[in-house]
């Protein structure tokens, strides 16, 4: 469902995106947050003394312990330290996010390039397929795919990627279509450069930047959608730590044991927000 941000139009980037971003305080802040999240996901074991709990080892005696010095975020229903869980959950969230977006780009972008560049019946076929793919309610489709394939991390990522690729096809196709008409492509043709060299040298580098913009925006949505799937029990499976899964389990303890949903919920929010902010800035810069 979180797919609409991709409707903003794209133009060719006149200036370097990083330079623009440096001047946007929100972009700086969000990049910092993302860096911190990535680093803390990578170095999670070093940031907590309860790494085992973070990875899933139960500690029943501490069940639902409220936040305290020992558990700054409190403990979950199996007594695991929520701080450690949230920390390790970042690995899953970021991993899922990248996997989904990467998967969607991998399927969508080449199809879009082919459709846009070659045009004709190939374009027609590919675009009708994406029309159909878009007509499916995305979350419904993701749920169906995830429940058909069996719930786990990769399947959830595949399920979501399978509902997202058409957007990349559209973006890349629109770009390729516009590029195809550009004089520099015609110039390459006149020189006698072959089709695939043209795609590789002249089309792809120019398509990349809108795709990167879109991907940045989508990372936030990917994390959110993955969380929604996990919330339904179709995402990452316990004891693997996952924010959506934590909120889903913690929900029944709300509001008396507020900490259980609050910390992972906030983590999802912050991660999504950071990527969305960055994506938004990148998009602005790209205009």
């Amino acid at each position, binding site marked *: *469902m979180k797919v609409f941000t991709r409707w903003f139009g794209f133009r060719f980037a006149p200036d370097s995106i990083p330079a623009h971003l440096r001047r946007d305080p929100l972009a700086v802040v969000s990049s910092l947050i993302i860096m911190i999240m990535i680093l803390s996901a990578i170095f999670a074991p070093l940031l907590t003394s309860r790494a085992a709990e973070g990875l899933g080892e139960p500690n029943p005696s501490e069940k639902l312990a409220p936040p305290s010095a020992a558990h700054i975020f409190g403990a979950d229903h199996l007594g695991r330290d929520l701080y450690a869980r949230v920390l390790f959950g970042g690995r899953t969230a970021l991993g899922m996010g990248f996997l989904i977006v990467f998967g969607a780009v991998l399927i969508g972008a080449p199809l879009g390039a082919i459709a846009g560049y070659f045009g004709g019946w190939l374009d027609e076929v590919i675009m009708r397929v994406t029309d159909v793919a878009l*007509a499916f*309610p995305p979350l419904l489709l993701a749920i169906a795919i995830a429940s*058909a394939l069996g719930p786990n991390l990769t399947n959830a990522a595949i399920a979501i990627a399978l509902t997202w690729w058409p957007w990349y096809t559209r973006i890349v196709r629109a770009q390729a279509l516009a590029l195809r008409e550009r004089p520099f492509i015609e110039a390459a043709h006149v020189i006698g450069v072959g089709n695939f060299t043209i795609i590789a040298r002249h089309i792809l580098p120019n398509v990349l930047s809108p795709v990167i913009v879109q991907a940045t925006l989508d990372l936030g949505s990917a994390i959110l959608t993955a969380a929604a799937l996990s919330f339904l029990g179709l995402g990452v499976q316990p004891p693997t730590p996952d924010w959506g899964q934590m*909120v889903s389990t913690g929900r029944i303890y709300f*509001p008396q044991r507020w900490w259980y949903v609050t910390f992972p*919920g906030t983590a999802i*929010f912050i991660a999504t927000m950071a990527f*969305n*902010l960055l994506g938004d800035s990148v998009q602005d810069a790209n205009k």
Partner: protein
Amino acid sequence: MLIYLLRRLLLAILVIVSVSVVTFFVARVIPSDPAALYAGQRPTSDQIAAARERLELDQPLYNQYFRFVRDILKGDLGTSYKTKHAILADIKTFLPATLELVIASTLMAIIIGIPVGVLAGAKHGGWLDQTTRILSIAGVSFPTFWLALVLQLFFFGTLHRLFPLSSRISNNVALFNSFPAVTGFYLIDTLLAGNFIAWRDAVWHIILPTLTLATYPISLTLRMTRAAMVETLSEKYITAARAQGLPERDILFRYALKNAIVPTLTVLGLSFAYSLTGAFLVEVIFSWPGLGKYVTDAIFNVDFPVIVAVTLIVTLFFVSINLFVDIIQAFLDPRVVLR
């Protein structure tokens, strides 16, 4: 215009047919035994066999598909394997509930998102733009389920039962102020019955779920409108209109908005169609008996006929809304038709 419409209609039909084929066949590929499901919670072997025969599952797939299409054309969406309900009847119950919610949130998105987006876009970089930028990005970053919980806690807990937490009307109204279900939209049915107590109750119940559901489309509409406005306002015809001395209000809400509204409408239409099933988290949390919950349950139960039927209905909405938006677009922008 006519040929344009015909072409769009044809494409829409193509999409619907393809979706029906794909869902139908994919549903069959999901590893599960529909006969066992049909036979009930703890069926015996012969109940399963009987079910298989009854459902003609032993027939070739394409036969099953044609039978399915024939039934649909007769207005029969089939029967749920799990509950044995007539799906059409179920949808008549659940679709209006969801529609009521989704329409309410879409209206909110239009009423709040578009004007604020226009103003933010008009002074882009200004304080309104900066504030709404952060707010609307936050709005699309909230996990729905979390937002719902926070709203529940805030409005019910902190603000002491300002709004009810679940269901479409309260038990008291159902018991003592009931009204006939005509359209299935409670806000309308209560009015039709002239029952204002029930109407107020229904309004009161729809507020929290609508708020939860609307956060995303409001933010999205705002961002889209703003982006389109920024883009449109940089068009030369806007400078030209200013040079002609037209007042700013006219320029924003007449000249620019008409050109900037199309992407917003497209997105709003999509969001509307996707919310029909995508609202289910809200529906679960607010015990709102809607389509999303209905089909999600069906998915968990691998209840094919329901999945297929709902997918078709939603697709129907999807293509009709798209068609509608396209027509509006053609109406707003005379250049479109010629393409």
